[in-house]
């Protein structure tokens, strides 16, 4: 946590001057059938400072936006207790709450803030969780996301992903022939959005390193595609691949040592592995068809990728050691940009069903049973990226004439949309866990 806070403080200091554009807002469009009812009571401010964040409100938004919870409106609360002795369980039972969260913010003397929170089970009248989080005054939002993670895990059994971030690309039409592309970094909920790259030429395929410290992406800023690696903390970046032809679809190996990428320097798109230390390139596919969109299995032993070697784009898995190649998708006439969940069991992808006309949707395939479920009905969905807890996929889709981000849980029960204030939004990539 402390490390994270230091990182954040540094980033805020260095990047705060960058104007914020296209901030996203998360809206749940479909939640679970009977969401858990929880009251997040406003935290008492005992610090004598004006706080930059309403911690309880951020927690309330996080839990509400997960689709699993239905937080109580503050207006309906009969009291705002901040200590256990002031919590009257009968009141909360009358309000039909399952759980209550209270908390307080205090100054520690060393310039930090101490956030104490407590989670109660209303029916059993017991305390489930009590904890104290120390942060700098600028880190209050991080503290709130941390508390959300803890409560979410305690009550659902699923690891929370509220402390994670997303990157995405925005495009704005600046006139007949001019566009402005931005690579954006934000909290998972769209807050604290920052521009980390701006260019009049296309930016695409941002990919997180597994430790969350770096991004690889494709930028056309020289007029041609090149692959760059950018350090998030410093903004420092390096062009690492710019062969003639395609330079695309970078994907970090789980150990961070290698990048899988696509080059067409040998005549047509093939997948290569670039050793980031030795800069040695190893070609791993050999076929005159299109081979692209590589992604690593979580164990780093194999790559999945899109190939049209069978006549249509389908997803294949290549074992890097044995060179064994296996086609994974058979349902539908277009399956592309596969991504595996961290346990390696589920494959998400862009899918078009047989006879499905023009519809491109996000589908998930259980690799154990090969059952395929179509998660969206959007028609123009692309770029699925899985949250590190493996429960939600964020993707890009079209709403009216605008590109927007949306998300859906892997079981299809919860759906969100994340409209932006301006421009076209696309290419979301969900960070790994950041601490």
């Amino acid at each position, binding site marked *: 946590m402390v490390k994270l806070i230091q990182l954040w403080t540094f980033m805020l200091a260095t990047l705060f001057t960058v104007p914020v554009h296209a901030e996203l807002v998360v809206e749940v469009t479909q939640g679970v059938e009977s969401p858990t009812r929880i009251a997040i009571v406003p935290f008492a401010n005992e610090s004598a400072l004006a706080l930059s964040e309403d911690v309880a409100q951020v927690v309330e938004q996080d839990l509400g936006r997960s689709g699993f919870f239905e937080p109580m409106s503050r207006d309906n609360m009969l009291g705002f207790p901040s200590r256990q002795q002031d919590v009257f369980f009968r009141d909360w039972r009358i309000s039909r709450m399952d759980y209550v969260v209270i908390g307080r913010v205090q100054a520690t003397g060393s310039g930090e803030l101490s956030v104490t929170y407590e989670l109660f089970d209303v029916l059993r009248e017991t305390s489930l969780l009590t904890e104290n989080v120390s942060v700098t005054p600028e880190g209050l939002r991080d503290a709130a996301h941390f508390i959300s993670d803890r409560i979410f895990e305690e009550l659902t059994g699923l690891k929370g992903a509220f402390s994670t971030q997303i990157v995405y690309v925005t495009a704005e*039409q600046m006139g007949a022939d001019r*566009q402005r592309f931005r690579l954006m970094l934000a909290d998972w909920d769209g807050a604290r959005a920052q521009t980390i790259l701006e260019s009049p030429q*296309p930016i*695409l*395929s941002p990919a997180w390193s597994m430790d969350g410290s770096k991004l690889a992406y494709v930028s*056309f800023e020289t*007029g*041609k*595609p090149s692959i760059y690696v950018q350090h998030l903390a410093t903004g420092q970046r390096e062009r690492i691949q710019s062969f*003639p*032809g*395609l330079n*695309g*679809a970078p994907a970090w190996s789980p150990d961070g040592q290698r990048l899988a990428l*696509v080059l*067409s320097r*040998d*005549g*047509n*798109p093939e997948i290569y592995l670039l050793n980031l230390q030795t800069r040695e390139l190893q070609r791993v596919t*050999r076929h*005159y068809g*299109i081979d*692209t*969109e590589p992604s690593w299995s979580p164990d780093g032993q194999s790559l999945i990728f*899109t190939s*049209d070697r069978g006549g*249509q*784009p389908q997803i294949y898995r290549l074992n890097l050691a044995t060179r064994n190649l296996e086609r994974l998708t058979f349902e539908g006439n*277009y399956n*592309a*940009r596969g991504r595996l969940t961290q346990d390696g069991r589920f494959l998400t992808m*862009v899918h078009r069903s047989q006879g499905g006309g*023009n519809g*491109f949707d996000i589908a998930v395939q259980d690799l154990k049973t090969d059952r395929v479920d179509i998660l969206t009905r959007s028609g*123009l969905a*692309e*770029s699925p990226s899985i949250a590190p807890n493996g429960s939600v996929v964020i993707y890009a889709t*079209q709403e009216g*004439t605008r590109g927007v981000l949306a998300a859906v849980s892997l079981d299809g029960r919860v759906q969100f949309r994340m409209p932006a204030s301006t421009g076209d939004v*696309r*290419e979301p990539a969900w960070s790994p866990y950041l601490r």
Partner: protein
Amino acid sequence: MRVANFTKAVAITSAMIWAAGCSTTSTTTDGGSAGSANGGQSGSGASSYGASSGGVSAGQVVTREDLNQLQTVFYFDFDKAVVRQQGFADLEAHARYLAQNPGAAVRLEGHADERGTREYNMALGERRAKAVERLLMVNGAASGQVESVSFGEEKPAMIGHDAASWAKNRRVELKYLSK
């Protein structure tokens, strides 16, 4: 392996050109004789343009002014990278201009419509640009005169999300870097 593939590709493309040549036999035989004479160029320029696709007859010298008459955007079917026959005559003329003007160079920008994934479309755009590139090369352009860049679905010509816009966006744009 790579060479073999390329040879195959060239063979296929050549066959396509040959087929195209056959389908327009009347104009090409005329052009052929003019080509062997190779003298009387321009002047009667207007008459040498075929009424159909506005191309310049085969074998004739292609002038800088002629280029203005030639098609520079070539369209494709969904998930396909086969140059349509309508484009052959004009591409052949571009190729001939390049062959006659070694200092000239073109950039082929391949594009895809928005359907499907971005990186796959990037590859598709390149495949389309390469298809045009091969047609230019088998018709006399030198490799140093042609460069291909794919923009995938990133730079649509039409912003709409309908079949008409998609058809206009699946394209290769031929741009002269120097004439």
